[in-house]
């Protein structure tokens, strides 16, 4: 697996007010990595869709969720997590249809409810590079 060269972490409150901050952050990261404008827009929407889900779900036991941007030469791996593990499988019901279809269309590899410590991961790779963990 390609080694991660840099990591940027956002700690987000469960508030709609700041989802745009996550969009701006990933936009800056993706731009610096060299993704084209169309791909940057795709990644922004995908990140926002997940953030929207976290904000909508809220949490009684945690005051924030975390977005980790793992940057490598060939791909951007974005991991969402929270200390509130009841938020696992955050995309779970039929209301999420459009949201999930957007994320799956725009990102190369989306892991929902993974058997790991985090809640969700999504990857965007440069063309010609596999978006899977190979």
């Amino acid at each position, binding site marked *: 697996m390609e080694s991660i060269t840099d990591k940027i972490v956002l700690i987000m409150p469960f508030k*709609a*007010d700041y*989802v*745009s901050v996550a*969009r701006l952050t990933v936009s800056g990261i993706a731009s610096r990595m060299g993704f084209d404008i*169309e791909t940057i*827009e*795709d990644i*922004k*929407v995908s990140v*926002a*869709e997940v*953030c*929207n889900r976290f*904000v*909508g779900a809220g949490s009684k036991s945690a005051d924030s969720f975390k977005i980790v941007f793992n940057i490598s030469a060939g791909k951007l791996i974005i991991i969402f997590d929270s200390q509130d593990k009841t938020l696992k499988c955050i995309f779970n019901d039929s209301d999420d249809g*459009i*949201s999930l*279809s*957007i994320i799956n*269309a*725009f990102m190369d590899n989306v892991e929902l409810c993974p058997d790991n410590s985090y809640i969700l991961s999504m990857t965007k790779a440069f063309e010609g590079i596999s978006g899977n963990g190979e």
Partner: protein
Amino acid sequence: MPSELIIREELSRDYLKVSITGDIDIYTAQEFKEKLYGFIDTYNIDLKIDCLGLNYIDSTGLGIFVEALKKTKLFGKDIQLENLKDNIRKLFIITGLNKLFIIK
């Protein structure tokens, strides 16, 4: 925090032109919904929505558009979307909503 969304309306004889500038996201969605539904309830007329200034939308905003379309159809009216930016048009295509709306 100042709104990142500006909505203007201009009434013509046969339709209401609605111009959107900014981002429709989870933060601005409620404002957008209230204004759009308000126009539909008030004017009972076809809507032409100019999206030239619309920079961002996600499923939150798309859902509002769909519900707005349902409301206008109940009144026998329709919604036309104009001047979609490429990234916005792409979202409508991916979600299949380009088949529901008149898009110019």
